[in-house]
């Protein structure tokens, strides 16, 4: 990189004067200032407060704090049934989302890249659109879809001679319903990402496979699928992180009470309820740190998982 010596001032100045007389010295700080000042106040400082707050408890809404040591963490891990529900729902929802969405997204991506297909970008757009909708809108649409009296799901069931199901009132339907909503919202999005990944696969690899007599099925299974592993890794890590922070759809779809028989708690709805429903801000922060810990563990595990498999193939 070429670096050009800026001619210094001829007179001798104090170091402060020197700093301000050379524009290239102080403008960088001016440029980063708007972001870093707000960043320091509204992100960095709260982060430092978070470290302390996990070991504190707020005394109601007074703004006073009491030191409680590890009590928050102990309570969250041993004496909070909603934490157990939230963890179970997180695992169930994440695994369910990936297991239903990824295979369908892969098949859809293969279909949408077929050269015989007309109006490719139209279909791609239609499948992608639900992922653009706000979480609040998705929650409301979900509420309509699973409404007992005038919902889409029950109308379909009744049309085929089935019973009218009280989807919202039964705890066992909470996660399946959320999985249906999530499938509708994210499957097409994943397919578009996979299509983008497919465009990175070199023509010569596919050509070589064709010359070697590989059938379309063999090409999909043994060439395209393995080469898309980084994309699958990216999708599953962001999906897991997303469902860890799952708030809007469950909050709107299930309401503030955690759904039927309180079985629909997620970490975010629990934190929100603890902090702003019961004013236990210290406790809610402690849960936030536990969620951060889970996020780190999951990301490391997933990276390991995909790297390990890639490494094995190279060997």
């Amino acid at each position, binding site marked *: 990189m070429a670096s*050009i010596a800026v001619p210094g001032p001829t007179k001798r100045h104090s170091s402060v004067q020197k700093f301000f007389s050379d*524009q290239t010295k102080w403008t*960088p*700080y001016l440029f*980063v200032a708007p*972001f870093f*000042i*707000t*960043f320091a106040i*509204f*992100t960095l*400082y*709260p982060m430092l407060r*978070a470290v302390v707050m996990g070991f504190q408890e*707020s005394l109601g809404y007074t*703004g006073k704090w009491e030191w409680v040591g590890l009590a928050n963490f102990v309570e969250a891990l041993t004496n909070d049934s909603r934490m157990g529900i939230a963890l179970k729902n997180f695992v169930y929802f994440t695994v369910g989302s990936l297991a239903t969405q990824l295979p369908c997204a892969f098949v*859809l991506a293969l279909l949408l*890249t*077929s*050269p*015989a297909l007309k*109006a490719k970008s139209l*279909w791609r757009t239609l*499948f992608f*659109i639900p992922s*653009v909708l*706000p979480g609040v*809108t998705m929650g*409301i649409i979900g509420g*309509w*879809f699973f409404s007992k009296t*005038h*919902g*889409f799901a029950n*109308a379909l069931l009744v049309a085929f001679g089935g019973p009218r199901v009280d989807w919202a009132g039964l705890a066992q339907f909470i996660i399946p319903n959320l999985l249906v909503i999530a499938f509708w919202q994210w499957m097409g999005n994943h397919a578009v*990402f996979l299509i*983008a990944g*497919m*465009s*990175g696969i070199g023509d010569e690899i*596919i*050509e070589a496979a*064709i010359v070697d007599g590989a059938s379309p099925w063999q090409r*999909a299974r043994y060439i*395209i699928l393995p080469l898309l592993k980084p*994309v699958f890794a990216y999708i599953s890590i962001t999906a897991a992180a997303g469902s*860890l*922070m799952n708030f809007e759809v469950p*909050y*709107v779809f299930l309401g*503030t009470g955690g759904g039927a028989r309180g079985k629909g708690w997620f970490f*975010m709805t629990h934190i929100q309820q603890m*902090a702003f429903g019961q004013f236990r*801000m210290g406790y*809610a922060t402690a*849960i*936030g*740190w536990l*969620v*951060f810990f889970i996020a780190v563990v999951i990301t490391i595990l997933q990276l390991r998982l995909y790297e390990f498999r890639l490494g094995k193939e190279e060997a």
Partner: protein
Amino acid sequence: MVTPALFMQRPQARPKIGLFRLRAIVTTTIAAILALVFVWPFLCILAATFNKLDVVMNPLIPIPAKFSLQFYQLMLGEKYHFQDYIMNSVVVSVSTTVLSALASTLSGYALAKLRFPGRGLLFSIIIGVMLLPTATMLVPQFVVMRELKLVNSYWGLILPGVGGGAFGIFLMRQFMLNIPTEMLEAARMDGANEFALFSRIVLPNAKAGIGVIATLSLRGNWNALLWPQLIITDPARQLLMPQIALHNNMMVEVWAIHVVRTASLVAAIVPLALYAYSQRHFVSTLAGAIKG
């Protein structure tokens, strides 16, 4: 363009035109049917917002039993006046986006192209804090806002949006790295000062990047539910998304649910329009970010 990796044929073994046309018809029909199944429920709820109250409508058919703009009138009427919340949301998300795009562009440029002591440290702090999830930051951030007396103020929504855009900084820095350093050096040699450099060379070259982060920020701020719900306590000043969620939780009249549905579909117009506008940018940028 996307390589049709799976279906590519050996050059000498091209299928006959008739066979190809048949395949085109079959695959296009399958795609069309799947897409129709996919958007069908959305069309149905959209039609339901144009139905007349008390007229029973089949939820499986996307045609109102009796067409009426009743729910839209109610939504914008004296009782619900959602237009106020839409305006509030527009004000907050546009100001946040403008300020945060400006701050990110300036910082991204400085971090990518200017050399100054402390640059590496600042960048590592951003990357480190970027990893902290909302779950951890939500409550402490709210406590700080309360101490700064920014609760129930739009600044309480705008300023954290400007200072929380670590991802925007990261993205802008990546875009800025593509601007040739020689171009900047040449302008400096010609006597351009640092501000002229930024406005005449950096900004025009960073347009695509600014477009992407502005779109992401606008969409994120428009869609936000949790933070405005906490910060804004005065219902009249509340934004659109928290108001929809609120009305959804306390439905008093029979028609309230229909008004809420109508408002939630109207609320989706902004992200849909943003998507339509920036579709090319969006898909190619995100695809570029995950390649390799």
